[in-house]
C-alpha cells in the first residue's frame, strides 16, 4: 500500500443484506476498527444512484481503492468499474446473507470479516502495470506446407497478416498432394471432389503476404508470443526471423504397414495401403502391381492398425470415408469391379453418411467383421460374429489396407536430440485416455474390469518441430497418443505453449474439410495472441489480465520449482540459474507463486502476502467462544461460482467458513495453509477443480499440484503438533451447488471432532 492509497468501504443494504445483518455495525468495523477514512452505505449500490455515489468519490479523489461490500464479484462487474480506481469486492450477498441465517451472530461476524478481508486485500493489491518491452512482430510462422499449413497461410493473408510457410520437403502439398480425389465435404456430398491442393499451391505461391520456404526446418525457437526468434535452416543455410505467433500444421504420416505383417503387407505386391492406392488411381481402372492385370475384385480392410491397442489405439477418423471413396472411384472407372469393405464399425459421421449411401447404391458390399489375416494369395480371413467363426474370402485381385494416421508431432527426418528425462516429459502422454470412469459398483458376479495397458507410450522418434529453447524442453507438449491436442472440450486451441497453435491432423485425426477450418481457427488464435500481447494482456483464460509475476531475486534460492511447475513453460533459467519469466508466455495462474518456498514471486494485484493478510484480517474468536474458523481457498473458476450458486439457491452452510478466491489452486502456497493454522484457524480447505486424467483445471495441473503440495504438509503440521486432518483438499465442480454446503458442513464436523486449534489466542 502506497501513501497515495485512499481506501473507501461501500456497503450495500440491498438483496436482503440490510435485513440479515446490522449494516451499521459492519460499517463501524470499517471506520472504527480499520480506520478507513470513508465508509458509506446505500440501499442498493448497483443502482444508478449508488454507482454515481462511488464514481463521484473516485472523481473527487476521495477514494481510489473502493471496497464494495455487496454482491459476488462474479456479477455487476460492469457497473462497479471506475476509471482510475482499483476496485475490491467483498461478497456479502451470495456467500454471507444468502447462505447463513438472518440476524444471527455468526452471520454478522462473517459479514464483518468480509469487510476486514476486503480492506486487507485493498491494502495489498494495486491495479497492475502491463508489461511491454521491446519490439513486437506481427508475422506468423506456419510450419508445414501441406493442405492445412497452406490453408493457414492463405487465411492469415486474407486477414492482412504476413506469414513464412516453412516446409521440410522440396515442395508444397504434403500428403494431400498425393490424393487423386478427395472425400466430399460440400453438398450434395455424393461424389468424390477434385483435389484442391494444386490450386492452393498456386494461390500460396502468388500471395505476396506469404513467403514460402521449402527444404526448410526450424532449428531453434526462443522468445515468446509477439517476440519469437526462430532459426530456420533452408537446405543447410541458416537464417533467423522474428514472429508474433506460430501455427504448427505438420500433419501426419501413414502408420507403418510393415508392422501389419499379419494383414499380408509385404507378402504380395497386391496388398497395398490406402495411401499407395491413391498412386494407382487414375482416370481408368486400377491394375494389379504384380501382373498389370485390371483389378476386378478388391477388398478393403478397415482399421488396419487403428483401434488396435497393439498399434494405434485411437480411430483415425478418415479411413472409412477414404475406403468408400476408393471403392466408388474403382467402380466408377470399371462398373464390373466388385468391392468389399470389411469393417468393425463403419464411421461416416455427419453428412458423410450420404457418401456411404452412394457406395451402397453403386453395389459396394459392406461386410461386418474383423479381419484376422491376409495371406500371400490374397485370401482375407475375417471373424464373423454371426457365425462365430473365421471366414475366408478368396479370389481377390487386390487387398487394400486402410491404414491410419500417425501425427507428425516430431520431425522424423531429423535425429532426436539428447534430452534429459525432465525435458522429455512434455512429449509423453499427459493423460491416460483409458483411465476408468466412476461407477457406483458392480452387480453380484461381476468384477471391475482391468484397465488395459496403454499402447504408444514411447517417446516419438525424431527431432522437436520447433526446438523450443524452453526450460521445460524443446517439444510441443502432447496430450495423448502423440497428438498435440487440447484437453479442453470448450477450448480446443488451449495447449500448454502460449502463442503456438497446432491444427489439422497433428492435433487430432481429421479429414480435409474439418482440417481447413481448423487451420483458420488456429490462425485466428495466433492473430489474437499477437494483438493482445503487445498491449501486455494475458491470453486465455484470464484474457486481458495485465498483471504478470514479478520475482524478487534477492532472496531466490534457485530451487527451480517455479521453472519446473509452470504449466505453460513461461519461466526459463538464466545462466546463473536464477529464474526469468517470459511475460507473454505467462497465463497469470500464479502456479509459480504457489511453488515458491520463499514467497518471492508476486503479482501487482495478487500475492502470497495478500492472501495471508486477508486470512489474518479475520477476527479470531478465542478458545472459549467455541466458534471455529475454517479458511477456504477456493478456485475462482469452479469452486467459487459453486459457492455463489449455493447462495443463489439459498442453501445454508456453516457460517464459520471464511472464503478467499484464488486464481488457481496452483497459486496457493503451503505457507498460506500453515500460516492460517498458526494464526488460529481450526481448519484449511483447498477447494479446486478435478485433477487426474480427466483434469478440468484450466491451468492444467493447478489442482493436482495443490494436492501434491498439501500431501507434504503433514510434516509441517506434526512439527506444530497439529492434526493432519485440519488441512484438506476438496475437488468440487461448478455444478456442485447443491452439495458443496454439505461437504463444508461435513468438514466442519470433522474439525468439531478434533477440537479447536490450540494456537488460538497466541
Amino acid at each position: 500500500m502506497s501513501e497515495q492509497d485512499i481506501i473507501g468501504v461501500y456497503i450495500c443494504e440491498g438483496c436482503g443484506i440490510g435485513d440479515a445483518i446490522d449494516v451499521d455495525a459492519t460499517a463501524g468495523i470499517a471506520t472504527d476498527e480499520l480506520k478507513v477514512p470513508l465508509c458509506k452505505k446505500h440501499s442498493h449500490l448497483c443502482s444508478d444512484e449508488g454507482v454515481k455515489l462511488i464514481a463521484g468519490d473516485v472523481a473527487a479523489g476521495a477514494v481510489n481503492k473502493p471496497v464494495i461490500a455487496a454482491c459476488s464479484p462474479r456479477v455487476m462487474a460492469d457497473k462497479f468499474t471506475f476509471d482510475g480506481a482499483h476496485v475490491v469486492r467483498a461478497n456479502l450477498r451470495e456467500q454471507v446473507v444468502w447462505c447463513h441465517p438472518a440476524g444471527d451472530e455468526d452471520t454478522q461476524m462473517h459479514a464483518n470479516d468480509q469487510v476486514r478481508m476486503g480492506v486487507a486485500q485493498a491494502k495489498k493489491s494495486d491495479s497492475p502495470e502491463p508489461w511491454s518491452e521491446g519490439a513486437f512482430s506481427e508475422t506468423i510462422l506456419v510450419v508445414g506446407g501441406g493442405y492445412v499449413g497452406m490453408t493457414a497461410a492463405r487465411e492469415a493473408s486474407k486477414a492482412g497478416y504476413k506469414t513464412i510457410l516453412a516446409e521440410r520437403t522440396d515442395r508444397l502439398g504434403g500428403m494431400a498432394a498425393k490424393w487423386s480425389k478427395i472425400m466430399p465435404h460440400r453438398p450434395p456430398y455424393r461424389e468424390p471432389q477434385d483435389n484442391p491442393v494444386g490450386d492452393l499451391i498456386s494461390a500460396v505461391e502468388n500471395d505476396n503476404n506469404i513467403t514460402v520456404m521449402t527444404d526448410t526446418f526450424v532449428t531453434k525457437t526462443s522468445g515468446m508470443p509477439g517476440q519469437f526468434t526462430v532459426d530456420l535452416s533452408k537446405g543447410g543455410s541458416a537464417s533467423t526471423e522474428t514472429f508474433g505467433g506460430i501455427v504448427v500444421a505438420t500433419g501426419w504420416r501413414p502408420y507403418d504397414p510393415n508392422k501389419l505383417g499379419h494383414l499380408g503387407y509385404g507378402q504380395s505386391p497386391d496388398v497395398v495401403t490406402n495411401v499407395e492406392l491413391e498412386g494407382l488411381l487414375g482416370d481408368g481402372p486400377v491394375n494389379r502391381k504384380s501382373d498389370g492385370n485390371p483389378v476386378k475384385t478388391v477388398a478393403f480392410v478397415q482399421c488396419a492398425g487403428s483401434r488396435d491397442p497393439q498399434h494405434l489405439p485411437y480411430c483415425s477418423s478418415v479411413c472409412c470415408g477414404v475406403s468408400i471413396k476408393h471403392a466408388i472411384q474403382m467402380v466408377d472407372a470399371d462398373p464390373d469391379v466388385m468391392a468389399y469393405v470389411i469393417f468393425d464399425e463403419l464411421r461416416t459421421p455427419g453428412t458423410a453418411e450420404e457418401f456411404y449411401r452412394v457406395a451402397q447404391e453403386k453395389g459396394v458390399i459392406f461386410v461386418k467383421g474383423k479381419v484376422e489375416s491376409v495371406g500371400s494369395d490374397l485370401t482375407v480371413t475375417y471373424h464373423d460374429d454371426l457365425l462365430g467363426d473365421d471366414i475366408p474370402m478368396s479370389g481377390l485381385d487386390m487387398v487394400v489396407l486402410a491404414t491410419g494416421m500417425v501425427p507428425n508431432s516430431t520431425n522424423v527426418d531429423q535425429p532426436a536430440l539428447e534430452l534429459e528425462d525432465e525435458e522429455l516429459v512434455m512429449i509423453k502422454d499427459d493423460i491416460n485416455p483409458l483411465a476408468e470412469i466412476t461407477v457406483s459398483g458392480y452387480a453380484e458376479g461381476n468384477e471391475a474390469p482391468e484397465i488395459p495397458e496403454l499402447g504408444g507410450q514411447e517417446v516419438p522418434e525424431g527431432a522437436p518441430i520447433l526446438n523450443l529453447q524452453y526450460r521445460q524442453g524443446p517439444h510441443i507438449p502432447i496430450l495423448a497418443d502423440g497428438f498435440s491436442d487440447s484437453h479442453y472440450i470448450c477450448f480446443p486451441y488451449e495447449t500448454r505453449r502460449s502463442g503456438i497453435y497446432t491444427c489439422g491432423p497433428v492435433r487430432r485425426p481429421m479429414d480435409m474439410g474439418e482440417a481447413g477450418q481448423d487451420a483458420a481457427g488456429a490462425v485466428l488464435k495466433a492473430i489474437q495472441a499477437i494483438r493482445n500481447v503487445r498491449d501486455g494482456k494475458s491470453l486465455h483464460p484470464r484474457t486481458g489480465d495485465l498483471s504478470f509475476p514479478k520475482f524478487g531475486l534477492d532472496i531466490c534460492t534457485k530451487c527451480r520449482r517455479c521453472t519446473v511447475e509452470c504449466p505453460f513453460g513461461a519461466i526459463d533459467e538464466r545462466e546463473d540459474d536464477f529464474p526469468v519469466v517470459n511475460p507473454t508466455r505467462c497465463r497469470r495462474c500464479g502456479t509459480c507463486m504457489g511453488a515458491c518456498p520463499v514467497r518471492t514471486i508476486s503479482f501487482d494485484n495478487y500475492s502470497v502476502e495478500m492472501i495471508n493478510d486477508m486470512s489474518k484480517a479475520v477476527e479470531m474468536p478465542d478458545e472459549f467462544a467455541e466458534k471455529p474458523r475454517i479458511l477456504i481457498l477456493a478456485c475462482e473458476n469452479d469452486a467459487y461460482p459453486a459457492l455463489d450458486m449455493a447462495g443463489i439457491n439459498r442453501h445454508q452452510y456453516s457460517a464459520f467458513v471464511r472464503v478467499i478466491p484464488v486464481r488457481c489452486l496452483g497459486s496457493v502456497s503451503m505457507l498460506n495453509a500453515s500460516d492460517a493454522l498458526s494464526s488460529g484457524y481450526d481448519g484449511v480447505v483447498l477447494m479446486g477443480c478435478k485433477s487426474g486424467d480427466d483434469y478440468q483445471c484450466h491451468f492444467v495441473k493447478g489442482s493436482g499440484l495443490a494436492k501434491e503440495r498439501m500431501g507434504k504438509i503433514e510434516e509441517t503440521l506434526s512439527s506444530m503438533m497439529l492434526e493432519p486432518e485440519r488441512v484438506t483438499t476438496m475437488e468440487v465442480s461448478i455444478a456442485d451447488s447443491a452439495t458443496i454446503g454439505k461437504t463444508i458442513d461435513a468438514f466442519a464436523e470433522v474439525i468439531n471432532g478434533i477440537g479447536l486449534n490450540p494456537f488460538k489466542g497466541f
Partner: protein
Amino acid sequence: MSTQGPSSQTILVVGGGIAGISAAIESAESGLDVILLEQSPVLGGRVSLLNRYFPKLCHPTCGLEINYQRIKKAKNLKVLTMSSVEKVDGEKGNFTVTVKTQPRHVNANCTACGACADAATTEVPNPSNYGLDTLKAAYLPTEHAFPMRYVIDPSVIGTPEADAIKAACKYAAVDLDETETTFEVNAGAIIWATGWRPYDANKLTSYDYKNPDVINNVEMERLAAHDGPTEGKIVRPSNGEEAKKVALIQCAGSRDINHLPYCSRICCLGSLKHAAYVREQYADAEVDIYYIDIRAHDKLESFHQKLKRDPQVHFLKSKPASIFTGEDGNPVVQGEDTVTREVYERPYDLVVLATGMEPSTQAGRPEVTLEEDEYGFIVPHSDDESGHISAGVASGPLDVSMSVQSATAAALKAIQAVQGA
C-alpha cells in the same frame, strides 16, 4: 446503434449457444466490435442444458463460466438477449439488420434478489428442463444464468399477480408495460450460429414416445442434472422409481432417409455418456445400447472402449423395429439382433431415444439467401464475398469441440470480411 460512414466493422453473431458465444468472444478478443443476439432470455443454448460433456464427463457450466467472465471483460462485445433477426438488408461490409426484441418485463435494474419469484404464484413449464417440471412465472432461468436477470412469463402479464410481482421488486426492475421492439444495427459481417433442435421423437411413430418412460436424449440430460426435475436422480418419469434397466436406442431418426438422412455424429457418444450416468448411480444397473455402428471418432474411441469394458453395459447391433408399452406399462423394445439373428422383446424401466440434431436455422431465420444443403445446414464458408458465415451446428452436425473450432474459424472469416470492407 449506428456506425460512422457507409461501412461497418461490427460483427453480428446470431445465436448465443456455445458456437455463437465462442465466435463472439474470439472476435471481440481480437479487437473487433461484436453484437451477440440470443433469442432466449439467457446465453448458453443447448450446451447449458446438458449435464456433462463427453468424454471427460465435465460440466458445461465450467467452460461457460470462463466464457461469461470473458464476455464481462470485453467492453467491445454487446449481448442482446430475447432478440432475433427480422430482416437483413445490404451486403458484406454494410448490412443493416433489423432486430426484434421480445419483452422480458425485467430491466437492467434487476439484482437477481428473487423477491419477484417469491411474489409469483403461477407455475409455468420450465423451459430449462424441456417442460419436465415447472417454475414460478417470475424466474431466473438457471442458477448459472447469464445475464443474471429474472424473466417474467408473458402468461401472467395483465393479471393481478403481475402487479404483485411488480410491487415486490424494490429496485424498480419490473416493467409490465414493456413491449416488443424492433431496431436496426449495422454490421459488416454476420455469423449465423443458430444451432439445432432435437429431432421430434413423435415422428418416430413406432417408438412409443408417448409412454412417459420413453424419453429422448436431451431429456435424459436433464434427468441426470443436479438442477433438473429430479435433482439428478435417474428415475422413471412415470412413477419416480429408480431406472436401473435402461435401453439406449441409437439412430432414432438419424441415418434414416425417412427422417434425418445424415448421421448426427454426437448421439453415439451421448448415449455412451448416458450409460456412464446410469452406472454412476446404480451398482446393479444394466444398460443395453442398440446401435448400427458406434461412431466414436478419433480419440473419442477411448471413451467407447471404457464403456465397452463394463460388464453391465451391453452393445447390441440392431436397430429396433418397435418400442411398445407392455401390459404392466413398461416400455418393451422389440427387434432382431443383426449379429446373432436373435429376435428379442425386452422390457425396460427407461428407454432413451438418441434423437439426432436438426438445424434450427429454418425457424429462427428471416429470408436471407444463404447457401444451404438439402438438410438445412448452412454450408460453411462457401462464399468469401457474401459476408454471411456459419458456425457450429448451423453448419453441420458437430460435437462441442468441433463447434468451437468452427466458431473460431468463423471469427477469422468475419474479421477478414469486415477488414476488407
